[in-house]
Every structure is written in structure tokens, then in C-alpha cells.
């Protein structure tokens, strides 16, 4: 684990293909930071991450609240079990299903046509249009990973002592006040943990983008993970790709540091 990291750091200071290496110092980093595409990719990664995490939280919290609200316990565990399935799928498989659904003649456009939102002659190539590609990948990722939030938040909700709500009701607290002053504070630590984790996971995610768009069209959905892959394994610019990887690692490191600190506190 440590050796590969040192190896990447070393490579990032070289210009390298498979056979030879030339020392270039911080040349790779200079090229990288001056590259418009790199910054566009970085921004895409941030958008993809923030979009996914926020929607995961909203949908996950909504469903967890519904599941926790007085439904029959058998129905609750049935619904939880059924809703968890997207999370079990490989990102590759989930991506494939969405590629199929979002194709120009796919079922999603079919649905929109039936509903009269678009006409049958103006099918949208969701993944082939640079305006919608990144959004489509984000939508798939939201669908695949919301169950994780749902399950974690439901577990958190069930740990909130019932008496707190009863006391609040006696004092005449409204539903919103109960949510704001009892539910949210009790979930704070769970939310912080899963938001951090999900940010890290999404920021480094490779499969969804690679499978669905390959970063295209014209890099409009490129994220750091796929950019590193293409620069390294297709253009064989291992030095440059390593420099990109180091920048990615540094950005993730900041988020991870919070997470590691939190975990270390709970571990001790």
C-alpha cells in the first residue's frame, strides 16, 4: 500500500512510457495545472460528487422517515429489503441498464414521448449530448447508491428514544419542530459519517463514468478517475497520469483527514 504510493509520487516527476523514464521535475504538475481540460475534469468530479451526495441524502432521508413512520414492521422490512437491491448491483451492471434505458430509442425517451413531453422525432441522446451526459451519469449513481443512506438513516432513526417525541408532543411541538430539534440532532453523527464516506467513494468512482460515457462526449463527463485511466493506459503518459493521481489524492486527503479523525475518535 505504501510502496505503490511512493512509486506514483516518483513517477509523477518523470516523463514515462512503459520503456523509458526521463526526469522532468515538476514539469508534469506545471502542464497539468495550466491545462484547461484538467480543471474542467476537476469541476466535473466535484459536480458529480456533490450532486450524488446531496440527492442520496435527500432521497435516503425521505425514505428512511417514511419507513420509520408508523408502518407495519413486516411491510417495513419488506420495503427495506426490496429498496436495497439497486445497491447490490455492480456499478457496471447498473450502468449498463441505464445506458440501455437512456439510448435515443430507449425506454426513457419512449416514456417521455408517451407522456407528450418530447415529440417522437426529437429523441434525446442523454449520454451522447454534452449538456446531459454528466447529469445522466449522476442520476444513475443516485439510483444505485441511495439505499446505503436509507439503511443507515433508518438504523439511526430507530435508535432515537421514543420518549423524546412523546415529551415534545406533550409540550405541543409541531411536526417540523420535532424533526428539527429531535430527529436531526440525533442523526447528526450518522449523517456526518455517511456524507463523508459517500463523498470519498463518489469522488474516486471510476466505473459509472467509464461504463456509461467513457468520459465523453468531448470530455463533458470526464472525471478524475477516468482521466487518469485514459492518460495512463491509453495514451501511455504514465508520468502525467501519476501527477493527476497525486492531485486527486491530495484533494481526497483533505476530506479523508476529517473522516479518519472521526473514526479514530470512535475507535478509541
Amino acid at each position: 500500500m505504501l510502496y505503490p504510493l511512493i512509486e506514483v509520487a516518483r513517477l509523477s516527476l518523470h516523463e514515462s512510457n512503459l520503456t523509458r523514464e526521463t526526469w522532468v521535475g515538476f514539469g508534469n504538475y506545471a502542464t497539468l495545472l495550466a491545462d484547461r481540460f484538467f480543471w474542467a475534469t476537476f469541476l466535473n468530479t466535484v459536480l458529480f460528487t456533490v450532486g450524488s451526495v446531496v440527492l442520496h441524502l435527500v432521497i435516503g432521508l425521505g425514505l428512511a422517515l417514511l419507513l420509520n413512520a408508523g408502518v407495519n414492521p413486516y411491510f417495513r422490512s419488506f420495503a427495506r429489503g426490496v429498496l436495497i437491491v439497486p445497491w447490490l448491483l455492480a456499478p457496471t451492471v447498473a450502468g449498463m441498464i441505464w445506458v440501455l434505458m437512456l439510448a435515443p430509442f430507449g425506454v426513457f425517451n419512449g416514456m417521455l414521448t408517451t407522456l407528450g413531453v418530447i415529440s417522437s422525432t426529437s429523441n434525446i441522446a442523454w449520454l451522447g449530448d454534452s449538456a446531459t451526459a454528466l447529469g445522466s451519469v449522476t442520476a444513475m449513481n443516485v439510483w444505485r447508491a441511495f439505499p446505503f443512506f436509507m439503511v443507515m438513516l433508518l438504523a439511526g432513526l430507530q435508535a432515537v428514544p421514543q420518549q423524546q417525541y412523546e415529551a415534545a408532543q406533550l409540550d405541543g411541538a409541531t411536526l417540523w419542530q420535532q424533526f428539527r430539534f429531535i430527529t436531526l440532532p440525533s442523526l447528526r453523527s450518522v449523517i456526518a459519517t455517511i456524507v463523508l464516506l459517500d463523498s470519498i467513494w463518489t469522488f474516486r468512482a471510476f466505473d459509472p463514468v467509464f461504463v456509461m460515457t467513457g468520459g465523453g462526449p468531448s470530455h463533458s463527463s470526464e472525471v478524475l478517475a477516468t482521466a487518469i485511466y485514459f492518460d495512463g493506459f491509453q495514451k501511455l503518459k504514465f508520468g502525467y497520469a501519476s501527477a493527476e493521481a497525486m492531485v486527486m489524492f491530495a484533494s481526497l486527503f483533505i476530506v479523508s483527514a476529517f473522516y479518519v479523525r472521526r473514526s479514530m475518535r470512535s475507535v478509541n
Partner: protein
Amino acid sequence: MTMNAMTQHPSGGLGIAARRRLVNLSTYALLVLAIVVMWFPLAWMFSVSVRPNVEVMKMPPDWIPQVFTWEAYAKILSSPRYLRVFINTVSVALLVTALSLFLGAMAAYALARFNFLGHRMVLMFLITTQMFPLVLLCIPYFRIFISLGLYDSLTALVIVYLTFTLPFCILMLRSYFLNIPKDIEEAAMVDGCSRVGAIFRTLVPISWPAFIGAGLYTFLLAWNEFLFAVVLIESWGKRVLTMAIYSLLAEFVTDWNTMMAFSVLASAPLVVAFVFLQKYMVQGMTAGALTS
């Protein structure tokens, strides 16, 4: 719970019982709606897998296949090349799970019971491994395995998967072990068990829910992994499911029913395992996120 609270404030014209029923009904309605929406992609995957390819890209779409056929499944199950992919995936995932649990249990025991020098460092290191951007490791691993002559071998995949599943198993089992009183193994040791014997006769049997949870999660990770399967494997004979499904997209762009049948077959084992072991899986997820 929060919804029930509404019944305490009968502010509208409805009586308490009627309001309660309304709230309850809308909760169920929303949940059923969520299930329908979230299952649509899964239903579509299955529906495409059992229809001929000409029916896939029709406008407007047929919701129910007009011609029902298992031909895509037959094609996969009769092809030695595709069956090989299943065998590869099962062997890699099982081997990774078994090794992670076995080695993980040992390390977790040491971390839970002994306070040695660098104890904190080890824990911190394990947590950090879970945060690593894996794509960062692609380039060095690729070069290392080429120089070791392990490029394009399943061994390489097993080794790489272990580097991230093992720390997870260690952390999860450790947190479970911490909650088990030391006295239990000590009693076994007083009765003449060696320490290793005591671990396997007392601690492991007590902790089986943690083993199932960690094992399932590890299996899921190994089964679904894609990045390293792309980077480290080249030949068809060594491919795993995720990679094979992706190759279908690249090689035969329009063979949708085979691709979806493949996806169904690749997901089914996980879903079935989950149905039976839901409780442990949820525990594993919860514990995993809170410890790893």
C-alpha cells in the same frame, strides 16, 4: 412515529382517527410509489433479457415483451467462454472472502486484545486504506504485476482485492471482538486450550454474525469490482463478470438481450444471498460505515 404526532393536533375538520388513517395511507402510498420507481430499471433489465433484440429499441416501447424467449440465457449458459467467466468470478470472490475472514480474524484479535506499540498507527493505517483513491494504485500495480509475471492472472486480482477487503474485515471484526468479554477465552485457556484453540472454539463461534456480515460485504466488493479487472486482466479466459459485461457493450453494440441476461445472472446470486441474510448484511453495512 413523527407522522403519528399529527394526530395530536386535530386542527383541520377531520377527526383524529380519520386523520391518522389518511397519514398512514399516504405513507404507504409514497413507499409503494418509491418501490415502483426504483424497481423500474430492474424490471426493464429482466424484461429486455427475455425478448428478442428486434423488440428492444422500439418506439413507442412495448412494456411487456411481445415474444417471450429464453434464447439469451440459453446462449450464455451454452457458451464455454461465458461459463468460464462465471467460474472465474465465483472463485475469485470466494477465495478473497475466505482469506479476508481468516487473516482478518487473526489481525482483529491482536488489535482487540493486545495493546502493543504502534497499535494506534496500525488502526489509522487501516482506516486510511479504506479512503484511498484506487485509481491511484492502478499504475503501480500494473507495473508491479507485469514485472512479477502475474499480469493477466486471477492471482493478481485476488491479491489486489485483499488489499482493500482485508483492512475492512479487520476493522469490522475488531469492533465486534471488543464487545466480547475477555473472560470467555480466558476460561477456555484455563481449561487447557491454547490461545489459538481458544480463539477458534469460543470467540469465532460467538462472533458468527460479524463473520457473515463482513463476509457478505467482502464477497459483494470482490464480485462487483471493475477497475482492476480492466487494468490487470487481458484475455477472455481470465475475465470476470463485470469486465465481460462491459466487453459485450464494446464488442456487440446491439446485443442487448444477451447483455441484460448476463446482468440478471450476475446480480441474481447477490440478491438471493441478500434475501436470506438480510439482517446480517444490514448489520455489516451499518458497522462497516461506522468502523471502516
